[in-house]
């Protein structure tokens, strides 16, 4: 038999002025289950809570209704009061008579009072159907998995590891470093990318709390927040890293030459190679697609010259498992292939290159030792045309969005060009200049003033060859005329796009991704770091195009989230989640279909008492369920109920007035 206590709050004048509180108390007293109904100035105050605690004890109350402000205000406060009085905190219901009555019906006290009484009735009726609930605690494995070893992954890994939480960093290429390692200098300060990145890379390699697994990929992820199990495929490198000293003899002697992807295929690398001099780990790997030994079974020169005998052609892919509690996705970005721009002669004219190719050229450690040259004849270009928004903001050929970083790096390129080739001149075709960011606008000014780059507002319509020059025709919108620029080299600022593997990875991890293939954040404003799947976070361009500062910031945010998640030994979870009543479950599995969190699985249970025959029923994964109730409403046999919002509770409210 339910024994309910009703506590009506004046909230100073907030409620009392517009609702006849004593009348509400009198109404409440009429309800059968109500054993005590009282009013007080401020229920949330200590004396107020004291009243509640005493009443619970004196009247042996089974549930409590507080008629006051919105539950979003003080639910926690009053739950604690119940707990202190030895009552299950979830036996509390709140009648929101301030936000929903006194504040919104200030002209009609009678009606406001009636409504308040009804809200109290409803709350009482609901509370009668309340069940005792207990916080769910899920154990956590305190190890984070970081996918991607670019600056985002590196930063996240380091920050997490610095909190003495073990990190497994998985990088698909032979070395960490990512795109940033390919850059020469970085805007807006023009400090050398390598100089600021490589120390961090070394830290990663030497950090006691970081397990670096290069040349490998995540192929499977099971479980739920705090309790994931990841399968990681280590691709065969054919080099035993433990014994290899990275002397490089093998690489020198290898006869096979392959286009060097790290240098955007401008020069060649060997079949056994380290991607770049500062690579971490600085150990070579054999590129199985090109190694003659692996393809034809002949050669093996590298093995001959390896003093340590670290080369092992028999090596095979290996799958390892890691138990982890959280995942950070930092898979970075790709660049859009400008082929569709036929009118520019992309593909036909050698001297049209992408900005990352330019970036490699001007890089001191790059294929041309820091001097930009024309691919066609190796001459140093004088007039260089930079064209922005290639693929970006272009629904016809490319994608709708703005790639965010092109304005800045193009300005940077203009400056770098000036540094490397003093008598050169840069022309920049642009749609807008988007230089929002600390020191960015100044940086663009610097390009325009110091290096006297010519900024031409307008789209390029055509590029054609005249002698060994490229004639770039476009419109200068400011003077409203067609201009033609005679150039030696054309650099296309191609759009930033999501890595092509992102959707596959997203599906594998069970997170959602947008139509471009970027990973989706849980909330565009308030949860930009989390995914909808608890315990999986996003860092860097895998979520959307970003510059380095933003990427690093988001990576550190991920680290903070992970540390927060691992703060306790168990994860505390709100018990207001779904539960399945096997007796009624007919196993149609429609709930599995509609659950947005893949929180529902199936299990086999005996058909009847002690029968061998099995039947399938749904099973809620406590760790994953977020308590939205979608499954409850679609369950035709009412086998699912959502704690805190059960059908009886809600129907009680409906029929209470």
């Amino acid at each position, binding site marked *: 038999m339910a024994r309910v206590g009703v506590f009506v709050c004046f909230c100073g004048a907030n409620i009392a002025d517009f609702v006849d509180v004593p009348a509400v108390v009198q109404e409440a007293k009429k309800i059968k289950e109500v054993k005590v109904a009282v009013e007080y100035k401020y229920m949330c105050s200590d004396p107020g809570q004291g009243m509640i605690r005493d009443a619970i004890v004196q009247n042996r109350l089974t549930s409590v209704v507080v008629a006051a402000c919105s539950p979003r205000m003080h639910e926690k406060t009053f739950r604690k009061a119940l707990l202190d009085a030895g009552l299950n905190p979830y036996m509390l219901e709140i009648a929101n008579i301030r936000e929903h009555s006194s504040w919104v019906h200030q002209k009609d006290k009678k009606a406001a009072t009636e409504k308040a009484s009804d809200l109290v009735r409803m709350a009482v009726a609901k509370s009668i*159907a309340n069940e005792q609930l207990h916080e769910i605690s899920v154990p956590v494995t305190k190890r984070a998995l970081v996918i991607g070893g670019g600056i985002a992954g590196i930063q996240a890994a380091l920050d997490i590891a610095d909190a003495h939480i073990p990190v497994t960093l998985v990088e698909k290429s032979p070395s960490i470093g990512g795109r940033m390692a390919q850059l020469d200098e970085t805007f807006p300060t023009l400090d050398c990318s390598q100089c600021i990145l490589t120390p961090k890379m070394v830290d990663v390699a030497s950090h006691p709390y970081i397990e670096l697994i290069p040349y490998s990929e995540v192929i499977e992820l099971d479980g739920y927040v705090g309790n994931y199990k990841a399968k990681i495929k280590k691709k065969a490198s054919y080099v035993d890293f433990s014994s290899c000293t990275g002397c490089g003899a093998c690489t020198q002697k290898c006869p096979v030459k392959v286009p060097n992807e790290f240098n955007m295929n401008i020069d060649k690398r060997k079949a056994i190679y380290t991607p770049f001099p500062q690579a971490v780990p600085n150990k070579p790997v054999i590129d199985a697609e090109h190694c003659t030994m692996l393809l034809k079974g002949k050669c093996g020169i590298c093995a001959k010259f390896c003093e340590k005998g670290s080369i092992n052609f028999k090596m095979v892919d290996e799958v390892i498992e890691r138990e982890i509690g959280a995942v950070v996705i930092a898979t970075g970005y790709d660049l859009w292939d400008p082929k569709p721009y036929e009118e520019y002669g992309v593909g036909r004219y050698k001297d049209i290159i992408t900005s990352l190719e330019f970036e490699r050229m001007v890089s001191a450690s790059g294929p041309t030792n820091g001097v930009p040259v024309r691919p066609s004849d190796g001459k140093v270009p004088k007039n260089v045309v930079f064209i922005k928004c290639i693929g970006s903001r272009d629904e016809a050929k490319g994608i709708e969005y703005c790639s965010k970083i092109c304005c800045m790096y193009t300005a940077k390129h203009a400056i770098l060009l000036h540094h490397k080739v003093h008598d050169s001149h840069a022309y920049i075709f642009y749609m807008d200049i988007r230089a929002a960011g600390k020191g960015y606008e100044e940086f663009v000014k610097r390009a325009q003033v110091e290096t006297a780059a010519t900024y031409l507002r307008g789209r390029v319509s055509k590029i054609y060859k005249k002698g060994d020059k490229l004639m770039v025709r476009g419109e200068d919108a400011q003077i409203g005329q067609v201009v033609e620029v005679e150039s030696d080299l054309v650099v296309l600022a191609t759009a930033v796009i999501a890595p092509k593997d992102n959707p596959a990875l997203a599906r594998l991890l069970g997170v959602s991704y947008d139509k471009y293939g970027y990973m989706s954040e849980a909330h565009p404003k308030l949860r930009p770091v989390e995914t909808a799947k608890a315990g999986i976070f996003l860092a860097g361009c895998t979520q959307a195009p970003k510059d380095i500062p933003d990427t690093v910031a988001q990576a550190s945010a991920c680290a903070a989230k992970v540390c927060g998640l691992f703060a306790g030994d168990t994860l505390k979870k709100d018990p207001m989640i779904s539960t399945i009543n096997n*007796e*009624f*479950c*007919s*196993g*149609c*599995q*429609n709930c599995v*279909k*509609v659950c947005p969190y893949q929180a529902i699985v199936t299990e086999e249970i005996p058909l009847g008492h002690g029968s061998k*025959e099995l039947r*399938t029923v749904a099973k809620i994964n406590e760790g994953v369920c977020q308590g939205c109730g979608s499954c409850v409403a*679609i369950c*035709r*046999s*009412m*086998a699912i109920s959502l704690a805190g919002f059960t*059908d*009886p509770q809600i*129907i*009680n409210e409906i*029929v209470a007035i």
Partner: protein
Amino acid sequence: MDYSNQIREIASRLFTDNKIDYFVGYKQNSFDDSQVPFLFTDPAKISNLVFTEKSVFNLTNYLKPDHTKRKRVGLVVKGCDSRALNLMLTESQVKRENVYIIGICCEGVLNEKGEKAQNCVECVMSDPVVYDEILGTPSGKKGYTINADIKELADKSLTERADYFEDIFNNCIRCNACRHSCPLCYCAKCCIDQETSTLYHGANTSSGAMHALMTWSLHLAGRCVDCRNCEKACPSHLPLHLLHKQNESVIYENFQQHLAGMEKDDRGAFYKYSLSDPDDFIL
């Protein structure tokens, strides 16, 4: 259409090859020319099997554990029946390996008056959508037509409609024959009968009947295949198809022309959504 002989042959083959434990077909009624479902385990009874345009009842109802106890069943399905079966398979009520399906390319069955039944006139898919063996020649998917009675009622005034349906709910005796004859009402215990829940509305009043029938029809919305077992079973002869056809038409018009049970693994309109679903009715 008369496939009696073919079905008898298949049935005896299935029994001799020990492919099935039960066979569900139709047999002639003892006292008039109507037919009744015929569930049997004894091959000797095969000779009673018939199939003509009087084979009305949707036999997939017998796949419920109550009747065939999760054993191997051979059964005859018409177009609409096979759609129901499709859903039962998708909703894992039946194991595919446990049913041997004889699909009939249906030419429409007859109602009591001997005319082609309304649901057959408006039938969209008279060919079986899932089967092991098919009899007759497929005629393909046909265009969807909004049920004639729905149209008629929609033109009536609100009060007329309200009176009409109140009459229906008043005449319901809540025997639940509609439910038990529906192959897709397989719940372990129907929500409407769960005395334990506050949702329970056991009284046999018109409000109780309205509550029960409306909920029932909403649980079948996007799943009902219009076989009209419910109507045949209803002792009060209530036009139950109205509720289902209404939902069906709304769903067809608004949710990518969805029709129940047409494709494998389609769970029905309420278990998926589209970003472009109508939103204009929401303030």
